[in-house]
């Protein structure tokens, strides 16, 4: 007897294991994540061409459904969709619908009437993309562009792409994630991705106020001290520290946080000499990272952005093709003949 698949993978995979929504990295297989990275690699070159488009999503409509504003993330999704030749509709819901008392379900039903093929969703509530994926018309793909503190799977996958690009793979790698893990959807997705892809060790470094309860249960080692936590790591991922953390007693001051956990060249010495430094952006100079590191030779922060478009192209094309194969199962049979 096999165990029932966990709810998250049941929703996001087709019966034959293809991606049809991308909601969370958790419970996905190593081969699927590697497939995603390989597909992204084939798209990296597209950005360098004179004509930066491939026709994989021609005739498809992608709706960027952002309940939380984020110009950067939305722009990369928009660019990725356009490079796949899709039509893109950007909707900033945060101000319009919800203030008029319209429920998320009402909003969704209205947009479905526009015959969208894919929703790229950012929402302040953890689990919102799961809710949408469960309610949406069959055949429409849902991509999570960040939900509450839960997940930001495309960001995590572009980080994995970056790591693989610079380190060649994940075997034996030690990765430290530093700062406000408690509020970070990026960190949660990164932890799952690193563990699935076979990293040797994932470390979290931060004060106890910024680490989630039972953090070890995520499959990480926890450190409160930077020198110890950074020792011999191959990759340092710095997280953004929101200014409002100072108001709610998570921290006394930015200055003390920077002194203890801000990454400067001196602290970076504890990592391996060839360690790379990453950050999901936007960075707070002098809060979680010193300019000497952010602009220094070990920083790959800007490359992350470039790879981000290719990874999102990969995710979008995989989800659309997964949806098509589950909508037209006879095609799969033809293929097998």
């Amino acid at each position, binding site marked *: 007897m096999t165990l029932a698949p966990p709810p998250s993978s049941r929703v996001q995979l087709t019966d034959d294991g293809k991606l049809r929504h991308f909601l969370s990295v958790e419970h996905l297989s190593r081969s699927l994540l590697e497939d995603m990275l390989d597909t992204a690699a084939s798209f990296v070159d597209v950005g360098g061409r004179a004509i930066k488009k491939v026709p994989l999503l021609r005739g498809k409509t992608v709706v960027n459904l952002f309940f939380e504003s984020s110009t950067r993330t939305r722009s990369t999704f928009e660019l990725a969709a356009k490079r796949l030749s899709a039509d893109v509709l950007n909707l900033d819901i945060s101000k319009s619908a919800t203030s008029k008392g319209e429920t998320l379900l009402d909003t969704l039903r209205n947009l479905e009437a526009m015959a969208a093929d894919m929703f790229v969703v950012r929402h302040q509530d953890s689990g919102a993309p799961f*809710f949408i994926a469960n309610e949406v018309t069959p055949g429409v793909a849902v991509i999570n562009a960040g939900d509450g503190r839960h997940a930001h799977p495309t960001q995590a996958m572009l980080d994995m792409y970056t790591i693989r690009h610079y380190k060649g793979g994940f075997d034996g790698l030690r990765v430290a994630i530093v700062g406000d893990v408690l509020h970070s959807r990026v960190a949660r997705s990164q932890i799952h991705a690193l563990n699935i892809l076979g990293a040797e060790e994932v470390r979290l470094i931060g004060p106890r106020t910024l680490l989630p309860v039972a953090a070890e249960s995520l499959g990480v080692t926890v450190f409160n001290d930077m020198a110890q936590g950074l020792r011999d790591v191959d990759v340092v991922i710095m997280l953004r520290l929101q200014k409002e953390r100072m108001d709610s007693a998570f921290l006394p001051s930015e200055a003390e946080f920077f002194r203890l956990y801000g990454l400067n060249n001196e602290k970076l010495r504890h990592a391996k000499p060839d360690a790379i430094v990453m950050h999901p952006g936007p960075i707070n100079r002098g809060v979680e990272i010193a300019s000497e590191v952010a602009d220094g030779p070990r920083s790959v922060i800007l490359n992350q952005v470039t790879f981000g478009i290719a990874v999102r192209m990969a995710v979008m094309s995989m989800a659309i093709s997964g949806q098509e194969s589950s909508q037209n199962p006879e095609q799969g049979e033809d293929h097998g003949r």
Partner: protein
Amino acid sequence: MAAKAHLLIRKGRVIDPASGRDEVADLLVEDGRLVRIGASLDAPGAEIVEAEGLWVIPGLVDACVHLSLPDSGRAGDVTSETRAAAAGGITHLAAQPDCGPVDSTAVVRLIREQAGQAGFARVLPVAALTQHLDGVQLAEMATLARAGCIAVGQAGAPVADALVLKRGLEYAATFDLPVMFRPQDAALAAGGCAHDGPVATRLGLPGIPAVAESVELARDLLLVEATGVRAHFQQISSRESLPLLRAAKARGLPVTADVSIHHLLLDESALEGFDSHCHVIPPLRGAADREALLAAVADGTIDAVCSQHQPSGSFSKTAPFPATRPGISGLDTLLPLVLKLVEDGALPLHRALEAVTAAPARCLGIQAGHLEPGRPASLCVLAAGESRTLSSHWLSAGRNSPWLHSRLPGAVKLTVCQGKVSWLSD
């Protein structure tokens, strides 16, 4: 509804946890009173109920129901929900003060009138401790008690500070009114929607730590000791609270406690996949908490098990988990889930039944929950071994339950509430 019935219930297995009775016997109800329990009773002219193979137990007493008044935003109304109670074998229920709120005699009268007209169950209103449950200005507790309230409480709404609470308790103690506490420190719980444990950590759900409950419980117990008020603690959810309750009881404080039935069956793992039907406050906690709560019910540290009935319309659950309205519709499932706990070997039969009959009656300070000759008859006849899929028998207007489509034991055949037949299955 039938008038005060003359009923002869024959050859059922009569289980009365309060007296320890568990035997096959006949049971005679005359003029609404339970007259006799014994072998081969004879009652010419009485309506005969053949109960061979069935159980006859006291009517259930539910110490925590959130009523559906028009302003409550909950599904259904007093009639629909008390009917669901009757069909679930419940004869007495304590209505929490958060609809209305219950801070004026007009609201008390409205509740009693609606419940009286419906006639399905005895509804015992709990009065607000403070006006509008604002936690600042004391409500007219003595007046509300005279109007029929059995206790006072805040239904989870916070009290401004320890001074207001201390004076509220002193005032309640003046009139020997029991106070119902739902311990949860508002600041520690702020913004949370799930137990602050490994599941919430993974799902990225803002947590409510167990200490939010135990911190406030510890403070409340000290104030109970200082004021001498009778206290009932509702919806205990974490194992850290149990030593505090045990110590208070060992010191002889007038303290009782209950737990919601769903905390005895589910833990935080039920939230996987963001199932909003498992969004409850206090949150479902860890597996070790669930085990400890069951042990505390078994050893009597926790006196009663209640439904914490919170019926809501489907729209309130169709949203991302943190945005959904917390609560489970519990009247339809209280008895079946208690029987399931017995079936699973999690609780002994007599204790499990006591926890939904005599024990909650004692917590509320009311005469109910037992089969005592001479008293108004409130009882339930059920086929304990008959399991049913609940969705096809569901009566509450709120279908917000993780068990809506489950198959559970216990089919209620007949409920008698204070001498009147309040439910008869076809």
